[in-house]
């Protein structure tokens, strides 16, 4: 409340800070940002950028690269270039949401465990141990049964699955912050746990969380499509990169590069995300050389 009231009096407007932040950015971080914005652009303008529809069958199967079909067609005769573009739109959103969900659940509980400690921590930690120890397949099938197979369910399931990993990390780093004097000061003041977590702990553990985010994002990306055999989530003919790799994977056996295209799309995104993440974590590590 106080903050909202007084923010107006802050001297530096946000855009200024962003700009000065950008000016400080290392070239690799900038490169990462440029790539991310390119992806964003593609996602927003997919229908205008794609020459053909996402599901429309436009030619013979596996048509070669040509002026009309820049990257050829897939096994059903759909334009690969167009599907690549639409796939960005379909998967990035889901992955992002699932990753965020994982970080919200895992992060929140991890911080609670670290701050409250004692038996709450024990119970949560053992619970997470358990969830991680239950084989993925059974876990996924069980969640599938509970939540169904919609996109929402997919996001929920991925979020729950990955939240366990995020929990462990968050708990570990939050533990280090929870023993700081300023947290003790907040306790002495009589602050509620929520406030302590939100205002005292969270701002201080963002950078390791960011680093983890960069990798988790990629893991979830791949999980999205590897869970599709369970009938989860994205419904055909919706394109997603993981599925595109999967659908065309056999081709690589014969040395054809088609499946490399969606794989490269994922790889470039992962690298870009991590370049940006590197920039953030490096900023937080206190090193500049």
């Amino acid at each position, binding site marked *: 409340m106080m903050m909202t009231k007084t923010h107006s009096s802050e001297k530096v407007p946000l855009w200024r800070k962003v700009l000065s932040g950008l000016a400080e950015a290392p070239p690799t971080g900038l490169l990462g940002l440029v790539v991310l914005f390119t992806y964003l652009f593609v996602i927003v303008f997919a229908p205008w950028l794609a020459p053909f529809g996402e599901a429309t069958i436009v030619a013979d199967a*596996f048509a070669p690269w040509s002026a009309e079909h820049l990257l050829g067609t897939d096994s059903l005769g759909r334009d690969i270039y167009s599907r690549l573009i639409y796939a960005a739109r379909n998967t990035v959103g889901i992955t992002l949401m699932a990753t965020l969900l994982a970080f919200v659940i895992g992060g929140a509980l991890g911080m609670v465990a670290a701050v409250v400690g004692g038996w709450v921590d024990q119970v949560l930690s053992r619970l997470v141990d358990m969830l991680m120890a239950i084989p993925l397949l059974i876990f996924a099938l069980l969640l599938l049964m509970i939540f169904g197979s919609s996109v929402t369910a997919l996001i929920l399931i991925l979020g729950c699955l990955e939240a366990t990993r995020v929990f462990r990390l968050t708990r570990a780093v939050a533990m280090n912050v929870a023993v700081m004097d300023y947290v003790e000061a907040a306790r002495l003041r009589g602050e509620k746990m929520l406030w302590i977590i939100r205002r005292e702990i969270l701002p201080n553990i963002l950078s390791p969380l960011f680093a983890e985010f960069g990798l988790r994002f990629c893991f979830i990306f791949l999980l999205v499509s590897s869970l599709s055999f369970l009938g989860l989530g994205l419904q055909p003919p919706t394109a997603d990169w993981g599925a595109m790799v999967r659908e065309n*994977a056999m081709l690589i056996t014969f040395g054809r590069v088609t499946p490399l295209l969606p794989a490269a799309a994922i790889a470039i995104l992962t690298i870009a995300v991590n370049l940006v993440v590197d920039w953030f974590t490096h900023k937080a590590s206190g090193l500049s050389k």
Partner: protein
Amino acid sequence: GSTPSPSPKRGGHFRLGLSRGSTTDSLDPARFSDVFMQSVGFAIYNYLTEVTPEGELIGELAESWEPAPDAARWAFKLRKGITFHNGKPLEAADVVATFNHHRGEKSQSAAKGIVDPIESIETDGTHTVIFNLKAANADFPAITSDYHMAIMPATDGKVDPNAGIGTGGYILEKLEPGVEAVVTRNPDYWKSGRAWFDKVSFLAITDAAARTNALRTGQIDAMDRVDLKTVNLLKMDPNLSINNVDSDQIYYFAMDTQAKPFNDNNVRLALKHAIDRQDIVDRVLKGYGRLANDQPIGASYLNYADLPQRQYDPDKARHYLKKAGYNSLSVDLSTSDAVFTGAVDAAVIYREHAAKAGIDINVKREPADGYWENVWMKRPWSMSYSSPRGTADWFFSQFFAEDANWNDTNWQNERFNTLLKAARAELDAGKRQEMYAEMQALVHNQGGWVAPAFSAYVSAATKAVGHGKIATNRDMDGNRIAERWWFEG
């Protein structure tokens, strides 16, 4: 397929990569479920009857059989001088025990439904078995060729289904479920000109790419289920031959004829006209298949009726839709790659076709795990497939009769049911043909199947492997690849 070689050669270690092996595979023929154990089964066991590559039913362990006196009672005469791998001579009691393994209250056999029509079995001397049926059935001998009905030796009137002992051309050396089965040639095999290899390994290779690579790098000699997406690339390998075996394995979309909107035959007809069957064959099967005609009986069946092929016709589809009172229609179609490879693709293509007729097909990919329990026969419209049955009666009884176990369209057609019963007891071939033709027309015009295609069995082998005409009744030469194939000299 390649041209049959004139000179089969004995010997060699044949390594066969098969797609559907599982760690839960069991030697018990009552539990054979897929091509892997079926192929092993046909290597180590014999059956009463055998379907030839030409599709003819001949005796295997049975020398002959005849209805005595009507089609409700069948007497099978066994060949003499055949011994099991353990040295026990084959006798009628073994056959009785084998069949009883599948029959009865306590039966746990997947073939229980098939042997249900048998009222009782008795022996007449050591080499004659008599089956008393609950109702007349002219096609009964065919079911004794079913892959579950492997003849096993009996002790005290019971068989040991897990012993793996048969009368077949190969003796089981080891079975490691989900990994491999190894058999060696039965030196005392009673058939001549069969079982050429010294040793056969059946390798469970689930992944199509893994099978393909194994074949290309010479780690296996033959494989089933070639990946159709890349079959054209595989064809370029000069050392390999691709066997395209026409079959009556059918892929279909099953509508619940009691559920809205499919309870209106006009809607069913609209959907049947809204699919471009040739496009499915071309794009999903890559040409390795034939058009189907919305009913299961294909050209290989004795009682096949050559009905006019239904065409893709969006206008007609619209017409039927209007007749049913719809301007446009939106329906859910449940599918999964558990149905067959490319099932989801087929649904997606169908969706494109139907869109031109104003029908919006909403493809729902369901979990592969539990598809057959939760989706098939439970959702109003789902995808399924079926391998061919020996006879039209067999197929109709299992899928279209009012009380059929797998009446996946919930179809209740009085005329059809009457005809089905009558045809069973009818011994006159001409009349039977008429009756079956009418039944096929009924399914074609009023049934709940949208059946776009019969798929071919596409397998591959190195050029070093030889074989005769390949049977079409089941995959991998009627599952008898170990018995029928050989290495070229």
